[in-house]
């Protein structure tokens, strides 16, 4: 339970980065998003990103000294995560500013840089946990899982806000369904690698699957998958309500998955 | 007092109205003085070191160096000048800072309204002395003597000055005493019959041994500093054999471990003797020159003992007995250490006599590095000046009356002429440490007044009327010696006594003062005295010569520790035994006088009753000495609760898994505790280690009956308890 701040931080930060990239990309490609909608989405992402930062401080013994966490950027992936994620939040504020000022060119440039920085932040974040001391984490599936959280939640979040504003011009269901298929594959890979891994990894798999949280997680995932599958061909279902529902389901699913990721981390 | 001064000075509305309203007189308060102007000379950051002595009932009796900063203890460790302590303490000794500063300490004298009610009121020392003194005088008046007053004091603190408690009670008249010891009586008597006294070689001589048998001893847990010498000897090529029913921590280190059936060690020794006699491996010269009764013993063995029989009896295969016998008899010198646990059986004394005989026939007694080592008291020749004041004139009765400490509850209840009405308990926790605690409680119920002097709240304090707070070793002075090694350690006062705690000596003087105020001449114990003078008075010329010190103060200034000179560190070096014959007595008339067979013969072990077929042993535990230490936080952080060790075969039979709760029961009592499945114990035995655990309301003694050992009256006045002949049944709870 004491890793709860980290659970919230990783899920929210990945959501924010995924959402940001989606917004930036739609804006660049279609240029159909109005200033006010762009501002709303951009602001809400900044808020989510900011909450993530605040919550992460609760994990620290000395929250007021958190600024020192960038000191060891040369070797520490945590330091890199903090730096890059900090950079990302800063750039996303700037990006929002350019929405406010309605400057598409600068927006596109800053958005591009922030996208790269955000991707590096997620990469660094995953690298923190890919450590031999915790066999269940020490695998490339951690990397996949972190990016997939971003890809599953980010576009859907932006999509549902666009749907609310009536500006949705892309089939979000299609994007999301691909990420869900990828997530399912990674999940299978994850458990099979745990099963064939060190005793601590086997134990992690057992602890995960023997807990009711795992089944809630699976159930929400399957329901979301089913609804999205139906909505691909059915335009009527591509509305804000359905997307909100699916988003909530998937948020719960990802949140619980991450919770279990921390809870079952057996040390060597 | 500051607050008074400034209130008077400024007379703010508040202070005035409050004082007027409540009519507060500061004089009525028991509170200590408050804040005062700071003394000029005070300086911070002062670091001092003091010598202390660990006074616990332990072989190792360590010399301690205490670091004190600003009047506060910051580190406690061993004294490097002591070659036995070697500058380091056992795990328990390392927790001493927590012992002193534990939040659980008793801080003030207190009186309980309603025994066991938990309703305590704080009283001053003067009130406490008054209540006790008045009761003593009333008893004396009513019964014509002080015999209804019973002292139960033993080994919680072996500081020589703590005998003041015994001295104080002797100074009021003849009283009833809990006599005997739960520790070593059968074995000590056995050695007394064989050699005249128990007397052991300096444990540092393990290094000189060629062969070591640890017979029912577990120094890895009970004497870590001896274990150092044993391990060093082992690394130099000495063979280490451990004979024990349990695979103890020490047995785990042995070159050879022999699992003997509990309480059949005598048969094993006699089997070895038979082999040694048959193969002419015994020391003919030694026995003919230094012993009597050898021929009688020889014919007893030839007639009654065979190695096959011993193998059958002990569960040790015949070839092993033969090999060990040959190795032991041919090694020079070979050292045997008999543990106290081995003799806590109904045939404990007889078993020790058989093992003594084994050492004697091989000529290992009187040799440096050899010996049959059990316990010794050669260095205890102090003046005991706290005990020598005698009964006051006009005391009723003719002598002290004794009850057996080992069957305390029942014997207190049986004492009738006159009955026991008041109890003084010091350095002891009988409600936790005595067998049959329910009977002890009944005896407590019969008392008019129970006074307990202790450091912590425990079961005994809970059932007392008055509790007196006592000092730790670091808050009072003293001097200590060991019943095992040959060092004397001074104990300086390192810090002020915390709260209102007092040493047993100060309590003795305080009570005597009160008694003499109330009735002049009613107590012969001195009413004043500097503890430093008292401790100096303990040193006589013999002690000073033995340890080559000028005085206690001299020793304090010069390292705090001194070793006895070599004239006594080899037991029986001169082969002048303290028996009536002056020789080693295979045939002991004294033994016969006490109703035993004169020879070291085989005596049957106690047989398990049908309904309770499982032996439950309660050996000493590595994080405690009796009811001390284990309850300290640092040790609770390592092991937080007692447990029962069960062999996997027995566990399987009873469907018990590791960590399951197990109920252990017999006709005396029961308790429920978690199981630890381990091959360290045999399948017919379970083990629950001795100790008092914080927050645990039972002890290992809940199932222990007051079953007597075979010996003890000769040297200790009373027989001991066969703690390890405790039979129970277990079931999954």
């Amino acid at each position, binding site marked *: 339970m004491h890793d709860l701040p980290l659970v919230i931080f990783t899920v929210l930060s990945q959501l924010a980065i995924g959402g940001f990239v989606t917004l930036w990309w739609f804006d660049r490609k279609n240029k159909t998003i109005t200033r006010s909608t762009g501002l709303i989405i951009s602001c809400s992402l900044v808020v989510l990103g900011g909450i993530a930062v605040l919550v992460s401080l609760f994990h*620290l013994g000395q929250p007021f000294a958190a600024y020192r966490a960038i000191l*060891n950027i040369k070797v520490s992936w945590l330091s890199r995560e*903090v730096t890059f994620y900090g950079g990302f939040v800063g750039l996303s504020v700037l990006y929002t500013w350019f929405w406010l000022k309605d400057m598409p060119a600068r927006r596109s440039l800053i958005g591009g840089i922030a996208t790269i920085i955000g991707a590096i932040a997620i990469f660094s974040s995953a690298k923190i946990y890919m450590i031999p001391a915790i066999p269940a984490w020490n695998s490339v599936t951690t990397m996949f899982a972190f990016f997939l959280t971003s890809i599953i939640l980010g576009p859907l979040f932006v999509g549902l806000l666009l749907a609310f504003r009536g500006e949705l011009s892309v089939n979000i269901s299609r994007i999301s369904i691909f990420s869900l298929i990828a997530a399912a594959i990674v999940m299978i890979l994850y458990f099979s690698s745990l099963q064939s891994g060190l005793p601590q990894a086997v134990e992690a798999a057992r602890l995960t699957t023997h807990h009711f949280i795992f089944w809630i997680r699976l159930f929400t995932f399957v329901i979301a998958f089913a609804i999205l599958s139906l909505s691909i061909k059915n335009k009527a279902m591509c509305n804000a309500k359905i997307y909100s529902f699916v988003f909530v389901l998937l948020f719960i699913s990802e949140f619980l998955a991450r919770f279990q990721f921390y809870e079952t981390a057996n040390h060597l | 007092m500051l607050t008074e001064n400034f209130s008077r000075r400024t007379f703010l509305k508040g202070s005035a109205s409050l004082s007027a309203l409540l009519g507060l007189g500061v004089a009525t308060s028991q509170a200590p003085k408050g804040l005062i102007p700071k003394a000029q000379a005070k300086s911070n950051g002062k670091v001092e070191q003091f010598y202390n002595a660990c006074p616990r009932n332990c072989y190792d009796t360590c010399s301690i160096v205490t670091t004190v900063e600003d009047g506060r203890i910051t580190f406690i460790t061993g004294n490097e000048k002591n070659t036995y302590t070697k500058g380091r303490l056992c795990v328990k000794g390392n927790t001493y800072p927590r012992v002193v500063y534990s939040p659980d300490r008793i801080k003030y004298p207190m009186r309980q309204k309603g025994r066991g009610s938990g309703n305590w009121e704080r009283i001053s020392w003067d009130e406490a002395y008054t209540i006790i003194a008045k009761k003593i005088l009333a008893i004396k008046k009513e019964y014509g003597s002080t015999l209804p007053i019973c002292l139960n004091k033993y080994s919680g603190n072996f500081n020589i000055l703590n005998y003041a408690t015994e001295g104080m009670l002797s100074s009021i008249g003849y009283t009833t005493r809990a006599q005997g010891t739960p520790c070593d009586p059968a074995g000590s008597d056995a050695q007394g019959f064989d050699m005249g006294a128990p007397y052991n070689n300096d444990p540092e001589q393990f290094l000189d041994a060629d062969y070591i048998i640890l017979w029912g001893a577990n120094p890895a847990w009970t004497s870590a500093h001896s274990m150092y010498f044993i391990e060093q000897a082992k690394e130099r090529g000495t063979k280490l054999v451990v004979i024990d029913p349990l*695979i103890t921590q020490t047995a785990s280190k042995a070159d050879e*471990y022999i699992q003997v059936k509990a309480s059949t060690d005598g048969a094993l020794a006699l089997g070895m003797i038979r082999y040694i006699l048959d193969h002419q491996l015994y020391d003919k010269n030694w026995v003919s020159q230094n012993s009597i009764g050898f021929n009688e013993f020889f014919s007893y063995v030839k007639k009654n003992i065979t190695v096959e029989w011993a193998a059958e009896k002990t569960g040790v295969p015949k070839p092993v007995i033969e090999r060990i016998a040959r190795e032991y008899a041919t090694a020079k010198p070979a050292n045997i250490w008999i543990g106290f646990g081995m003799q806590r059986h109904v045939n404990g004394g007889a078993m020790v006599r058989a093992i003594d005989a084994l050492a004697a026939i091989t000529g290992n007694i009187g040799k440096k590095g050899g010996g049959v080592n059990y316990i010794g008291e050669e260095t205890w020749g102090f003046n005991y000046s706290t005990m020598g004041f005698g009964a006051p004139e006009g005391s009723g009765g003719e002598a002290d009356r004794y009850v057996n400490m080992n069957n305390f509850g029942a014997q207190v209840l049986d004492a009738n002429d006159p009955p026991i009405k008041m109890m003084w308990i010091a350095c002891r926790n009988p409600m936790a440490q005595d067998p049959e605690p329910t009977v002890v409680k009944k005896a407590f119920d019969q008392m008019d007044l129970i006074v307990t002097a202790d450091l912590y709240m425990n079961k005994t304090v809970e059932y007392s009327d008055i509790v007196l707070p006592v000092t730790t070793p670091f808050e009072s002075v003293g001097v200590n010696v060991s019943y095992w090694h040959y060092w004397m350690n001074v104990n300086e006062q390192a810090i002020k006594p915390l709260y209102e705690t007092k040493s047993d000596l100060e309590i003795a003087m305080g009570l005597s003062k009160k008694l003499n105020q109330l009735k002049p001449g009613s107590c012969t114990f001195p009413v004043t005295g500097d503890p430093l003078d008292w401790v100096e008075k303990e040193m006589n010329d013999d002690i000073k010569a033995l340890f080559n010190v000028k005085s206690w103060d001299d020793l304090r200034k010069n390292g705090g520790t001194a070793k006895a000179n070599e004239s006594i560190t080899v037991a029986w070096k001169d082969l002048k035994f303290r028996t009536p014959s002056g020789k080693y007595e295979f045939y002991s008339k004294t033994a016969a006088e006490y109703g035993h067979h004169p020879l070291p013969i085989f005596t049957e072990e106690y047989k398990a009753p049908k309904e309770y077929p499982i032996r439950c042993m309660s050996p000493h535990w590595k994080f405690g000495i009796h009811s001390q230490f284990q309850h300290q936080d640092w040790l609770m952080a390592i092991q937080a609760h007692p447990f029962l060790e069960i062999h996997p075969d027995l566990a399987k039979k009873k469907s018990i898994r590791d960590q399951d709760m197990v109920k252990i029961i017999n006709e005396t009592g029961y308790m429920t505790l978690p199981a630890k499945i381990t091959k360290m114990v045999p399948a017919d035995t379970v083990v629950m280690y001795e100790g008092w655990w914080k927050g645990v309301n039972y002890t290992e003694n809940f199932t222990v009956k007051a079953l007597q050992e075979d010996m003890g009256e000769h040297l200790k006045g009373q027989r001991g308890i066969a703690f390890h002949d405790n039979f129970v049944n277990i079931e999954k709870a």
Partner: protein
Amino acid sequence: MAKKLGFLVNIERCIGCHACEISCKSFYQLEPNMRRRRVQELPEDVVGTPVRAFVSTACNHCDDPACKKACPVGAYTKREDGIVVHNQDLCIGCQMCGKACPYSVPMFNPVKKKMDKCSMCYDRLDVGQLPICVEKCPLEAIQIVDYNEVQPANAVSEIPTFADTSITHPTTHFILHKPGKQSRRF
């Protein structure tokens, strides 16, 4: 590197008494639940015959310390002589070092809200004294060895229950327990 200091733990001598752990705790006045050294019971059949065997470990002052790599503030340094030092003043209590260490050595001190670990008493070593645990072990079962100078006979770097040493290359070595003969009834 000039030196490569590491602990040499003699399991043959160790009696599992915890004096190392408690003397350290006492010397540094640590909280009851804080441990810079810990004594663990080994499986009782570790040497073939059933015995009570223990191993005492502290920080392993690894050649390639994972804590140092994980720490975001750079609170860890590895000295010339090989000692891995944690600078508590810098520590922000993120606990990543504890997660990254294969031996879970750094512990979170809930009162100071910072991490805490064994420093091999480097300040004592620097003035010619031994670490407390080395000096205070009643059986002299813990030593400090410069592994660049000596490779003690029969010392091994791996024992059961000790995590894979290829991860961080701990400097701690062990002398194993040699089983004695046993004549058991069960």
